[in-house]
């Protein structure tokens, strides 16, 4: 059994000693210690722990801030918080940044071991023979824009099917209602489909492709699928979440815990202030009242936890462009330099769209130029916020294509702002990869994401529902 790396983070030496003694009794773990948040991040960069036991109140950098940094840089790391403070708000904040569990002090050693061993089993399953880097081609019929890794299960017996079941359940918890309600019928459907094949000694592959929001689970057979009454019923249960085509059956699961951005995450505000009352009580001008009215009628673009993370991501240790480029080197840099040839196409496609507004021209821009950028940036793995921002903007443009092409002033504004986004990307490429003069490779990420959201707000006439109180803070 492969050892997993476990990091204990606590500023009090006695606490570290106690936790070390508790964890030492479990087999299959290598253990290291860190004395505060800064130290923990440094150990993560060098040693890449699988699981972290993290204290909250620590000098230099506390457990919350350290967890935020660690989850943004090493999202697969499992963080278990140990704290003496019972604070539901803090627990909610911890969950929003991806902390896996929250345990209270005084330490219950059995519970600590139980949690670590549980997460350890899931990690071993994930890290086993299943995870593979994929080709750029996606298999599922739902979506071609995915990060380039897949988890593959080659199954030839019931135990293999069980492995898959445990893995998929570990990815879709009860906190993800949209996914959770589909997991049971999906497993049942796949089980029914493969029963006969296993009896015939056929090896069946299940390929799980992941995007930021969803997992696409595809079962692939050698021969075409024939549905029987029971499997037909299960397919009907899954409705539009399932596609059966020739020899593949694919189910999409939303794992964000939210609805898919750009689809149904917009909610309408219901607050509306009576005009007369407002004028009398505050003495504002009619123009301002009208503005308030328009404002109060605006839909609200909610920002989910993942997006909030991208907006507020911060990197304690800044990486300079020179260090970064030296480190990654090779073919990926060539791919980035090839994007230079897209600058002209970016502008040209936008101008074509402005001259000849059509859904096809929006699609050409989104799937063509924007899509190439998203794939290339995704390949760098370092700039997820940039890739996510472009990807969300593309989804927004496609979904609002009708409204955009019907309103020439909106279209003009969208073209202008998107052209500016293109200049920002050109300048980003120059500062990071050509001139290599940026002191921090992440200087643009959050700001670019914020601009994409504002553009969605302007064009979609939506108010951004930012978690922070975005009133100016005066000093």
């Amino acid at each position: 059994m492969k050892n997993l790396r476990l990091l204990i983070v606590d500023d009090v030496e006695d606490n570290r000693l106690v936790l070390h003694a508790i964890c030492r009794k479990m087999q299959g773990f290598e253990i290291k210690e860190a004395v505060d948040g800064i130290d923990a991040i440094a150990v993560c960069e060098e040693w890449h722990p699988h699981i972290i036991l993290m204290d909250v109140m620590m000098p230099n950098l506390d457990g919350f801030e350290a967890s935020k940094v660690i989850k943004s840089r090493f999202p697969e790391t499992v963080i278990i918080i140990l704290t003496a403070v019972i604070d539901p708000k803090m627990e909610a904040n911890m969950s929003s940044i991806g902390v896996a569990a929250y345990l209270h002090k005084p330490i219950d050693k059995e519970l600590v071991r139980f949690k670590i061993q549980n997460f350890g089993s899931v990690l071993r399953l994930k890290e086993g023979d299943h995870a593979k880097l994929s080709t750029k081609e996606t298999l599922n019929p739902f979506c071609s824009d995915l990060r380039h890794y897949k988890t593959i299960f080659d199954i030839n017996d019931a135990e293999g099917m069980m492995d898959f079941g445990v893995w998929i359940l570990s990815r879709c918890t009860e906190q993800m209602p949209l996914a959770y309600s589909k997991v049971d019928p999906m497993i049942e459907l796949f089980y029914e489909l493969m029963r006969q094949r296993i009896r015939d000694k056929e090896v069946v592959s299940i390929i799980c492709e992941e995007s930021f929001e969803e997992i696409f689970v595809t079962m692939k057979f050698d021969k075409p699928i024939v549905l029987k009454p029971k499997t037909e019923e299960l397919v009907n249960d899954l409705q539009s979440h399932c596609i059966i085509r020739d020899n593949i059956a694919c189910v999409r699961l939303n794992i964000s815990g939210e609805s898919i951005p750009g689809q149904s995450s917009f909610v309408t505000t219901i607050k509306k202030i009576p005009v007369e009352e407002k004028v009398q009580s505050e003495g504002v001008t009619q123009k301002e009242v009208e503005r308030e009215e328009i404002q109060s009628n605006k839909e609200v673009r909610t920002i989910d936890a993942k997006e909030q993370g991208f907006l507020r991501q911060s990197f304690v240790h800044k990486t300079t462009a020179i260090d970064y480029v030296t480190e990654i080197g090779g073919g990926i840099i060539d791919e980035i330099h090839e994007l230079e040839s897209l600058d002209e196409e970016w502008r040209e496609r936008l101008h074509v769209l402005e001259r000849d507004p059509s859904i096809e021209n929006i699609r050409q821009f989104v799937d063509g130029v924007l899509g190439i950028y998203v794939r290339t940036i995704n390949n760098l793995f370092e700039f997820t916020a940039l890739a996510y921002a472009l990807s969300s903007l593309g989804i927004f443009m496609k979904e609002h294509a009708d409204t955009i092409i019907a309103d020439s002033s909106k279209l003009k504004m969208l073209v202008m702002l998107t052209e500016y986004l293109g200049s920002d990307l050109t300048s980003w490429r120059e500062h990071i990869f050509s001139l290599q003069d940026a002191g921090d490779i992440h200087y643009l990420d959050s700001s670019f994401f914020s601009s994409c959201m504002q553009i969605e707000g302007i064009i979609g006439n939506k108010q951004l529902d930012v978690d922070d109180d975005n009133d100016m803070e005066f000093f």
Partner: protein
Amino acid sequence: MAKRVIIVDDSRAVIATAELALDGLISSGVIEFKSYLNPEELLGALQSGAENFDLLISDVNMPQMNGLDLARAIKMDDRYKTKPIIVLTTESSEQMKMAGKEIGVTGWMVKPFSDEKLVKSLKMVLGV
């Protein structure tokens, strides 16, 4: 007389969205709006006397010079040390805000910003 508002941000998209938000104040002649993509260029222009401002809106994370370093350099110049500087950034950590406060910036606003709140804050700072 129109108040001179300068924004410095490495992103053209941010500058454009801010300009759209302030369109009412610009077109009615309450403010005149100027933008810089490069803090070094702005600092040079201020130091040489070629540029001046009644309010500066500055980003923090830019490729080379950081917005807080720019604010610090401006505040050290007697000609500008009482002029208001607003930080407009995605950074929201208390540490960064404290650093801004120590330098003497007037206010801190996080992106993505609301047009109405940006206009309101600007009016308040400029007294217009």
